[in-house]
């Protein structure tokens, strides 16, 4: 019985380790897909095999192992390499138009159409 429990616990630990490992490497993929490979031409860190991208992936893995969450990792990278590295620009005074302009156009167009149709 004790042996059974022991084996089970060991399996459980191996299992959970595997799981968390898998989740971690998936997380690296997820984050690196959102990063520009700075020395490549229009490639993400995830897609690139350059030295820069490889060391970047190791860096992200290390940060995850340190227990940093996504936001902290992005912030760290942005402070080190600048806004240019992320493919997903955050909303600030520089980028507010980028995010809002298409939406304004949609609303504007919608109003135009509403004025041209009759409900009855």
């Amino acid at each position, binding site marked *: 019985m004790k042996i059974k429990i022991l084996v089970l616990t060991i399996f459980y630990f191996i299992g959970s380790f595997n799981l968390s490992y898998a989740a971690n490497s998936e997380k690296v993929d997820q984050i690196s897909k959102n990063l520009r490979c700075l020395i490549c031409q229009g490639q993400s860190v995830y897609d690139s095999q350059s030295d820069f991208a490889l060391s970047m992936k190791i860096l992200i893995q290390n940060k995850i192992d340190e227990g940093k969450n996504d936001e902290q990792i992005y912030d760290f990278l942005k402070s080190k390499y600048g806004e240019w590295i992320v*493919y*997903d620009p955050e909303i600030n005074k520089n980028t507010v138009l980028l995010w809002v302009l298409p939406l304004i156009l949609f609303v504007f167009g919608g109003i135009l159409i509403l004025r041209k149709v*009759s409900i009855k």
Partner: protein
Amino acid sequence: MLNQIGNYSLYIALLSSIIIIIQSPILLNRNNINISGRIFSLISIQSLMIIISFIALIIGFIISDFSNETVYNNSHTSKPFFYKISGTWGNHEGSLLLWLLVLSIFLLIFTITSKNLSNKYRILTLFFQEIIILGFLLFILFTSNPFMSLFPIPNEGSGLNPILQDPALAIHPPILYLGYVGTSIIFSSSLAALISGSVNKSWAKHIKNWVLVSWIFLSIGILLGSIWAYYELGWGGFWFWDPVENVSLMPWFCLTALFHTILILEKREMFHSWAVILSITTFSLSMSGTFLVRSGILNSIHTFANDPSRGVFILCFLFILITLSIFIYFFYQNKIKNNFTKTHIVSKETAVLVNNLFMMFFLSVVLIGTVYPIFLEVVNNDKISVGPPFYHKLIVPFLIPFLIFMAIGPNLNWIKDKTNKINLQQLLFFILSIIISFIFLKRVGISYLFSLPLFIASFFLFFITIKDFSVKKTNLSQKISHFGFSLFILSVLVNGVLAKEYSSNMKVGDERKFLNKTIKFESLKVNESKNYQSLEANFKISDKKNSINLKPEVRVYDQPQTITSEADIKSTLYSDNFLVFNILKNDGFYNVRYQIKPFMIWIWISIILISFGGILSIVKKNG
């Protein structure tokens, strides 16, 4: 010798262009003159000259005439024959000559096929088209002449970028250009129709074919580019929201909107001004696309020109054309018939307006996402990247209502449909979509449940478009295109959710387990080819039932020295097996990336279906 032939024929073409531009206003005032006379022969001469110069360039590439600078820069004697030819347009100068060639041939076709239309309209179209041709001729002759001579004549050329030596990419530019340049005819003719006061049913009927032709070529051109990116860039994706891809997508959105609007104009004599505005916008987008790509201001894998003077020229030219068209629009706007009546909210007309609204929204997302970083950098020197997450976040939420509208819209009646009737059939399909999406996503993994609405909407559209094949009301070409679109969205979604990827560093003899499969690195051999050496790996992927062998390559081209990795892909109707490997610095180890991509082939098939609907529509009408 070839250089002289090319140069002189371009100058003759320039001369004919100037003569036509000067003569057409004179001819315009003489009402009963038929343009099949002198102007027609001038256009024929012009096309002939441009064809001759293009052939001269092709011959230069085939016989490796290195006294030509373009050939020297982009070719090499050891290159395979096929890529010597495709090298003609695989560079800046040659690709512009191709633009010009298509421009003049399209004009010739227009002149021949528009004989039963009014003279004024035809001459004005010729006039505007010749202005565009003149602009391109000047641009080619003075900033990007493909016939510059080199002396002393070098013995060997510097080669074509190996990444471009590929069958899909060899025919990708010409097809895409046919689409881009087709929009020039739409532009010229819409301005002509505006001035001659003939924006009406018969104009719509006439220009519809050109809209369709451009749209078909653009769709297939984009498809070829995506297929190429899929297997050649080795990342396993097919769309990267790369600026140059975006540039081809923008006129596509615009053309799709224009086509639907033209249909309404033809059937119901509505939305005249909007059709003209869309025609002008479509061409402006195609031109800006050329400007953005050619000027080299985009940070992109496609950029192969980097000369500011060229960019400035196109920018000025574009500015002149756009100003001219805006000016003409406001000056002649009052000539447009204004028999505007409000459309009912539940009618086919409103459905088309809604389609246009969504198309314009998608267009604006892509446009703003592409040019915003450029402007920001100019204005305050901040560099930002706009990539896939941005586009997904803005497009996906709008895709959901769009798909539902697309399912309902085409089944509505003209003028006014019944509002109080709840369509039981549609409701049933909707409930069915909810159930199927839920079961599907639950089986895939609970973390995907947030995309439930998107799946419901696309399954709904999918079912409705299938059901529509049994309804007689709409035409077959529309059904095929719409079904193709629903299949496209569904395949992309399923592919995105179910794709599996494994990446590892392996050496020969290694074995790895992935899901229920075993990946074995069996062997590695070196091959010699005409202009490259390749490292060919052999991987065996096996599960309990069967096994397949995948043989990706790493190629080392010598002229110019470049390493490319060629993925090996085995496609079935259910899924693609995709394997690519790269050389690592550590001895003996290679980075191996294996992907299972379900329903990948259906993405291509669906785009072919979408385009096929368009082809069918042209064939049916003329047959």
